[in-house]
């Protein structure tokens, strides 16, 4: 499972149950984020513990933040998946906004590397 463009890359490493997201994501609304959401959901279906690594995601617009919120709520509703969110404390938007996702799912583990 992989999506790759000039602006961003997303792929699933099944050996470590981790989806990596890199680059600049500023797609035009939720519809354009659907393929990414589909990839994330497919990955989650294959694991009871799941890691989303955003360390090299330099930019995410508010539609992308909404997409992440939707994904977190879907995990919350499943109730059976432990999720780790790995971010970077050297990327400003991550230091500002990732913590808000814990409002939706307090059990979410947030790690800054």
């Amino acid at each position, binding site marked *: 499972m992989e999506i790759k463009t000039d602006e961003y890359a997303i792929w699933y490493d099944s050996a470590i149950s981790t989806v990596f997201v890199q680059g600049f994501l500023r797609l035009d609304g939720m519809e354009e984020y659907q393929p990414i959401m589909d990839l994330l959901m497919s990955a989650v279906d294959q694991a009871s513990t799941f890691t989303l690594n955003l360390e090299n995601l330099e930019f995410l617009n508010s539609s992308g933040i909404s997409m992440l919120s939707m994904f977190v*709520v879907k995990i919350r509703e499943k109730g059976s998946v432990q999720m780790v969110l790995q971010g970077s*404390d050297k990327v400003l938007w991550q230091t500002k906004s990732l913590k808000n996702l814990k409002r*939706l799912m307090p059990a979410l583990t947030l790690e800054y590397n």
Partner: protein
Amino acid sequence: MTQTYAIHMLGNLNDNIPASDEYLTLNFSPSSSIRKRRWGNYGLSADFLGDYFATFFPGDEDTNSKINRKDAVKAAVSFVANELLENAVKYSNTSSSYPITISLHLYEQKIIFHATNCSNHETSRRYEEFVQELINTDLDKFYTQQLEKTAMGGGGSCMGILTMINDYGAQFCWKFQPVADYSEEVQISVIAHLDV
């Protein structure tokens, strides 16, 4: 039927923009090319504005953060400019003869953003209703409510504006005014102050 429309000003600021020595304005036609291509241009423009305004700030290490001031300004300006442009497009009338504009004014501790677009009455009214709710509700409670709403698939939650206010501490003024007497178009003017 054409309706008259008074000027409405909302938010915790007035619309005064003090003179500054450094400022930039970019104008975009709301209909010059297909939306997908224009969307890419807004991102490029936001990055350019971030890069440009970051040059006025030192790259010294910040003891409280792993991100130095120059990089923090670059990232914050790029995020705010991108969100303001995306909103201007979302609320814009594509057949308008007036451009979408964004201006950035630099001060010692602050950058003021000013974005404008023209909209029809209905779109403008919906935007204004959101702003009214935002300024009349506790921010923390409203943010959580809208985040949950967007997470459950509800559109129109305006997470961009809420993120700029809640996460970046931006302060806003919105001005809704007719472009001319009895016009079908309303100019939406958004002023955001960002401490840097």
